[in-house]
């Protein structure tokens, strides 16, 4: 992915979508929003996002259901679950569904930004590691060719 880092905000509360988008855009991220799980799935099928911030309770599905759906289509996207109803059960379910972070509302600006930065840094490191492995694989495969020019 080239250009700006793209983040999808999934929340049915308009005020939260607007406020979070403003904060993230101020930090230089490209932001898109979805009001429910269905819209989030549709958008993630047609656009590439580096990260998604997902409300635990959405009008049409649980945030954890959305996590499962997004895991299938965009396994490498960073997924941050946000909830106004924190409980150990919610946290455990989110982690089991492969959320990368679990934050409680109201989320502090610095907490949100540092969480995003840390996870995106980790994502970048994993991407780099993965590319290095593919590059190593290509090098190995080429060694199976006979060199055309003797050294």
């Amino acid at each position, binding site marked *: 992915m080239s250009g700006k880092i793209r983040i999808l905000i999934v929340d049915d509360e308009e005020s939260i979508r607007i406020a979070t988008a403003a904060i993230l855009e101020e930090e230089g991220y490209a932001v898109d929003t979805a009001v429910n799980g269905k819209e989030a799935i549709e958008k993630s099928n047609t656009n590439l996002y580096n990260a998604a911030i997902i409300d635990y309770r959405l009008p049409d599905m649980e945030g954890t259901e959305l996590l499962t759906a997004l895991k299938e289509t965009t396994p490498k996207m960073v997924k941050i679950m946000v909830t106004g109803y924190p409980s150990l059960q919610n946290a455990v379910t989110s982690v089991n569904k492969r959320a990368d972070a679990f934050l409680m509302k109201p989320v502090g600006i610095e907490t949100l930004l540092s969480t995003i930065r840390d996870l995106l840094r980790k994502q970048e490191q994993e991407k780099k590691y993965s*590319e290095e492995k*593919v*590059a190593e694989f290509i090098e190995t*495969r*080429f060694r199976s*060719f006979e*060199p055309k*020019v003797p050294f």
Partner: protein
Amino acid sequence: MSNHGKLLQDNLDQALIEAIDEGLLSIGSLPREVMLRNLENYFQIKKDDIPLNLAKFEDVLQTVFGSGTRYLERSIAQRLCEKLNLGVIGLESSSLVGCVDELKRQLLLRGERK
């Protein structure tokens, strides 16, 4: 080759080079760099010369990536079709070479209609 034919071939080659570059980038910038470097080191094929050595390029892809080659070939073919403003050609029963030949035929037809 007529002037029109030469121009068409040059445009196709340029679009193909760009499509290959972008297609290889889909597996990462480092893998792309390693792929192109080795293609030159082992086969003396520079990126700009791939259109002239497309069958060999396809053979190398097959040897390096095995069944994963289809993903790359589809990715390249799709980009090429977009660059040439032609309908996407499926690669289900065709090779990349076959796809490029078909696109060239369509370009010629389009030129004749104008």
